């Protein structure tokens, strides 16, 4: 094998093995860092793992937002109109957080409550996070919701 071809072979081998290792590590990192999504119904029926970081999507149930008068602690229910999950959170809620609005919360289940580390509401009022749409579709309440919005 001439030196030029040998060098090229080595480079290609290096590239392929480097890329292989990189992709392997990336996939491993991915499997460690994904957050699974659950609906309120799945959580209420005990299908979600506790103590693992997960996401829940649904609507903020009307009249359920309770604020602590001394601190930034807040609690509210997230519903797919079938089941509700009590969510607690400490911090500043996003601007579009409101009763009756779609919301995605990220956190862990702790003794029957969902302790949120992050609350996401979207920046466009007409936009519904796909997770929330999915939760409502699974509970069969999506059409009801859409009808409700038009009123």
């Amino acid at each position: 094998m001439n030196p030029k071809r040998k060098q090229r072979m080595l480079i290609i081998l290096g590239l392929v093995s480097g890329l292989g290792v990189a992709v392997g590590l990336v996939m491993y990192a991915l499997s460690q860092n994904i957050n699974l999504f659950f609906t309120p119904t799945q959580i209420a029926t005990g299908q979600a793992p506790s103590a693992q970081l997960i996401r829940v999507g649904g609507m903020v149930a009307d009249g359920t937002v309770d604020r602590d008068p001394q601190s930034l602690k807040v609690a509210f229910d997230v519903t797919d109109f079938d089941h509700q999950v009590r969510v607690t959170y400490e911090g500043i809620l996003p601007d579009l957080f409101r009763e009756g609005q779609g919301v995605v919360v990220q956190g862990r289940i702790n003794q029957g409550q969902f302790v949120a580390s992050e609350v996401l509401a979207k920046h466009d009022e007409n936009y519904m996070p796909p997770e929330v749409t999915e939760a409502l579709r699974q509970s069969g309440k999506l059409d009801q919701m859409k009808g409700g919005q038009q009123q």
Partner: protein
Amino acid sequence: MIPEIGHFALVLAFAIAICLAVFPLYGYLSNQQGFCATAKPLALLQGLALAVSFGVLMYGFLAHDFSVKYVADNSNLDLPWYFRMSAVWGAHEGSLLLWALILAFWGVAVALFSRGIPDHMSALVLSVMGMISVGFLAFMLFTSNPFVRILPFSPANGADLNPLLQDPGLIFHPPMLYMGYVGLSVAFAFAMASLISGKLDATWARWSRPWTTIAWAFLTLGIALGSWWAYYELGWGGWWFWDPVENASLIPWLVATALMHSLAVTEKRGLFRSWTLLLAIAAFSLSLLGTFLVRSGVLTSVHAFANDPERGVFILGFLIVVIGGSLTLYAIRASKVSEPGEFAWISRESFLLFNNLILTVMAVSVLLGTLYPLLVDAVGGGKVSVGPPFFNAVFVPLTAILVSGMAFGPLAKWRQSEDPRLFRPLIVTLIVSVVVGLAWPSMLDGQYSIGTAIGVALALWVAIATVVDVVKKVGLYGGVGTTLARVERGMIGMWLAHFGLALTIFGVVMVENHTEHRDLRMGVGDSQNLGSYDVRMTDLTVINGPNYVADQATFEIYQGDALYKTVTPQKRRYNASGMVMTEAAIDSGVTRDLYIAMGEPLDGGDWAVRLSVKPFVDWIWAGAFLMGLGGFVSITDKRYRQRVREEKEARVAEGAAA
């Protein structure tokens, strides 16, 4: 009547784009000069038609023509005129029109500044750009026409522009970003043209290099502006969220950065030819993918518009045609690419290869993380999301590896480094950066951070190595003035960009590891400690803006007993949409930003308040600005101007002879 002119101009542009895609290519294949010669006039005409179309839409906004649905959805009688102008690209249809306009603009630029390039070559390049244009204009006309009217019952007032977008940042962020995204189509078109013609030597690299550099510079500035905008307008003081749409701009940027470096090897040494072709295809394909991700709404993102799946399917189809077509052509032709020449293991080529390898891996990992939720969903694995922990875990170490090699490349010689003494200045650089890097965190409050030490050492490593390189060149040429005059502009651009990256890394490391951040409950009269300052809320009022009502808090910031500054963050409620927006108060400084934002009203007249001290945060964008500036400086090189001048002289001589 006027909106119909815009619509007509759009249809006309579509027709012209079809001609542009077909005629020059036919001319080239059938060897008829006449057909090839249509390329430039058609490119100019297309630019004109789209400019008219764009102008008409802008006129619709300025004149409050709410019979146009797009205007009615995104404007309002109370919206100030400058936001009415930027509202043109504030939503789906208009931003597509901007995309198409910029594509046509790049076509015009190629038509005007390609005089050094053989006619059949520029004809092919413009033809390929015409094909892309056909796809986008068809997409607009069939799924997203901005000129749809609401007649005869047009609304008296519009629904208003999304308040998030009512910001000076939006005036510049999308056009800059699109200039970059779409600018990569030029490099793509050059690569395609050379594949079609089968003329696969290094000349195409020389031609497409300035275009790639300028597109990269725009992309850099566009991403930086977006990050800056998110920092002060999205309200929570983050500068990068690993949002899918941010990633969609970062991936092409990484590939374009790799392309820029590999084009250097292809142009100077004729190596990496097929790899460079592949990168040129990948860079543009990934910007198309980015457009697909933004427009189709398949991923949860702050950028997602309310959307309809038909559009997603169209772009996906277009994406498959572009990527499939270009890769097929590549597969047929690439075997004919010869790779003459060799290089030693320690040479500039090998360092640039290293750069390309790392950048590619970075791009692939961000791509995988971004698309992973789609892949899992597609195989029925349920909904998942991939958050910042993944991206940080992958991206940060890769950046460290990339940056550690950055100091060597510019010092290494092409082909081989005969002389190991070449790297001697780096020994001092290494010692200084490691010592200062390790010492730096101990000078800060709080716990010693090894991450900060490594980050600062790496930033210094690149910065000092760049300065050493500059000083060496200045010594060689005997003075700063002569150096600037004699050295290649690309070299100056590289210095600026590498130094800028060092600044950005330093800013990122400091912000991520040493931000002081507190969410608090505060009422009028409450005082809180913030870094070396005391912050006191002194007043709460209601302010009436042009199209919003705001709760405004007044905070006095004290340094010791002296009043340093008074700031007034706001919580705005926009009248037309009812949307609530946070206007943070930011006191910017060289070494830190003070960041105060109002959260939400609580019982008893108190507010949730966010207080932060963000060390060196502005360095992130200052560095990005230097990188962009470096790109613009590079393309002013004499090589590029000279070619035009030679052309002119040749033509003058021809004229005299005739």
